[in-house]
């Protein structure tokens, strides 16, 4: 099964194969490559499963291994989307359920559509949703403007954050934070108050203060860009943080910083959906579920793997 190829990253991987109850996998499940799946590995995965359990109750009786007492945070059902410009279908029926307090990971080959799915969820104008539904905190996410999605508590860290010359990093953060406060009916913070608010967050991502006076992402190294994304997450907070390859291009120290920052932000209520190619991130932030994006980039195979 093509969808399984990324498994090789895991050698003696710590997750198990659990056919999802969701319908999206019907297509990939029928794909001819499926027999390639190594049966032995399947077994070993199964055997390790319990030891890496990160959720209170392991496999519940339900087929997807979810704790049914949990409140759903994000429910994606049969989502399809096209590239607005070329009208080419790019997301072909994705199903995904993220409950409050859960950590999920999406893996998959380059170009399989992981970033596209994230961007569709946060309302990127390059894509148009053509079918399916997305419910976030009980509301129809697809009807919201991108900024409303953000204000509703959905955060996505960009895989390649854009540089914005001429806009000061701290001004940008302040603008974003004040937009949030307005939304909550709280008074906006002036520059000095905001500085006091943001200063401790800098430590969290292990950045120097001069970081704030630079232009947003301009001339930032790969690692600095990632830290900046996490800083934004720390400043704004989120019920669901989609972290798109927050680990790529980072050395071990930087990775630990970033992972620690993410863990520091986590509570029992908020959830993370992280996209990664590398196992090492999963050692720092332990997911309960791993989903694989199908190799054929424009077909989504989701919820193929669950790990508890």
């Amino acid at each position: 099964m093509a969808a399984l190829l990324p498994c090789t990253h895991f050698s003696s991987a710590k997750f198990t194969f659990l056919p999802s109850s969701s319908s999206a996998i019907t297509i990939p499940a029928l794909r001819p490559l499926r027999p390639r799946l190594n049966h032995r590995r399947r077994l070993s995965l199964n055997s390790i499963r319990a030891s890496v359990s990160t959720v209170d109750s392991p496999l519940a009786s339900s087929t997807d291994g979810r704790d049914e007492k949990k409140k759903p945070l994000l429910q994606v059902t049969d989502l399809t989307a096209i590239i607005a410009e070329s009208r080419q279908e790019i997301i072909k029926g994705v199903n995904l359920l993220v409950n409050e307090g859960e950590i999920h990971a999406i893996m998959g080959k380059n170009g399989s559509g992981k970033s596209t799915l994230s961007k569709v969820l946060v309302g990127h104008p390059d894509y148009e949703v053509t079918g399916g539904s997305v419910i976030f905190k009980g509301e129809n996410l697809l009807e919201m403007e991108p900024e409303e999605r953000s204000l509703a508590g959905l955060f996505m860290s960009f895989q390649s954050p854009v540089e914005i010359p001429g806009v000061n990093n701290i001004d940008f953060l302040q603008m974003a934070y004040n937009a949030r406060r307005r939304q909550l009916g709280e008074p906006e913070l002036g520059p000095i108050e905001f500085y006091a608010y943001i200063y401790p967050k800098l430590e969290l991502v292990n950045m120097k203060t001069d970081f704030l006076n630079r232009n947003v992402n301009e001339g930032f190294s790969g690692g600095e860009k990632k830290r900046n994304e996490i800083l934004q997450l720390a400043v704004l907070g989120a019920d669901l943080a989609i972290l798109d390859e927050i680990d790529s291009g980072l050395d071990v120290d930087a990775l630990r910083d970033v992972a620690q920052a993410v863990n520091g932000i986590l509570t029992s209520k908020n959830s993370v959906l992280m996209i990664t190619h590398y196992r090492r991130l999963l050692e720092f932030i332990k997911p309960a579920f791993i989903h694989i994006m199908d190799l054929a980039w424009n077909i989504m195979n989701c919820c193929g793997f669950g790990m508890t």
Partner: protein
Amino acid sequence: MSVLSFTPHLHVHVSPILTPKPKPKPKLNKLRISSLQTFATPPPLPSFSDPFVLQLADSLEDSLPSSSQPLPLQKLRDFSSQTLLSTPWPSRKDEPFRFTDTSLIKSSLIEPVSHSAQFLDSLDVSGDTQFPNLIFIDGFLKESVLNLSNLPDGVYLGSLLRASDRIMERVSKFIGDFKWGDLFWSINGMGAPDLGVIYVPAGCKVEIPIYLKYFSVEGGNEESKKLPISNPRVFVLVEEGGEVGIVEEFVGKEGNACYWANPVLEVVIGGGGKVRHSYVQSQSLRAAHIKWTTVRQESSSTYELVEVSTGGKLSRHNVHVQQLGPETVTEVSTFHLSVTEQTQDLHSSLVFDYPRGYSRQLHKCIVAHPQGQAVFDGNVKVNRYAQQTDAGQLTRSLLLEPRATVNVKPNLQIIADDVKCSHGAAISDLEESQLFYFQARGIDLKTARKALVFSFGAEVIGRFPYPSVRKQAESHVKQLLETAYDSSS
């Protein structure tokens, strides 16, 4: 004071005032003769008889104080009047004015301003008290508000009339001759009532910036068609190893007064010297503002220009930088903003004749009105002996309205063979991906657009070396953009 009028097209049946006077005044006659004498071959006849220019020259001459002038100024006037009378009013057929319509000026009643010293004294214009300044009122130097106490010994700031013989002598060495000038250059040379001088002796580093504030007080309104003209002129001479920062600010008394400011700034920088030039043009949105800045750089000298131009209905900046020796450093950063029916024009020319010169030019403009226009003609000329020149030029334009226009003509002329030159031009709307980044962090589209538009210019504004200038330009640009946005949405 004479008055000029104009009908847009020169028909045969022109209003009587346009026809050249049947019997030119003797002094004008004299000028014409001297003009003829200058040329070995007579200049082409049609250019010689532009009646509009003739009348303008006449009225400028009338407006000048009759008292005798210091020699350099007299030299300048003679030279300018000669070239003026052989230069026709520019039309759209002339390449340098292809995109710049000067009919706003030509269709007005041009009145040279005359102010008495008493009048100038009576005016209460506040100069900066912190820094030394020269204040010009409609082109006339108001000397009473100078603040010279903070200047190092040997530095001179003031009218040429009161300069020492030595400075007078140094200045006259450079004044007058400028073969790249145009009609507007000559108009200033002929009409400048005075010459402001900034003199920095060898090795002297002036720590504080010197302000040049140009106020336009006289102004007509659109109905009257009256267009008072002023011709302020300043000469900056920095001797070997000297350093100075100058800040030029142009403002009108009222936001919608009609006037024509026609200033000239000449800069000569001695070997190893440095001039940091900040230029802020915030004229009335109905004014015409045509400025020349010419710079001559001796070896290893540095010239840095940062400009923010937002005012004027017709605004043009002609910048000419000429090398007088090798290893010069030239940095030109300019930002033009058109938020109403206005034309913002930059014509720049950097000429390299010596080895190892270095230049960086960044021009940015925003046009935020359907009838707004930006023009950029950026010439970099690397001549035969200018080997190992490193010249970079970049222009970016932001069009915020579907019908807003920009005409950019970056051009490199390279004759030397061992050089490093680059140029680039981009015209764009706001970047979708940048807008989305704001939205993804909860910031609404309108706020995001405003921030991005502002940031576009902030790159240049941020290069002003003085925080006060930077802050002032920032808030002025913000305010203009704010009004532009409010009226468009």
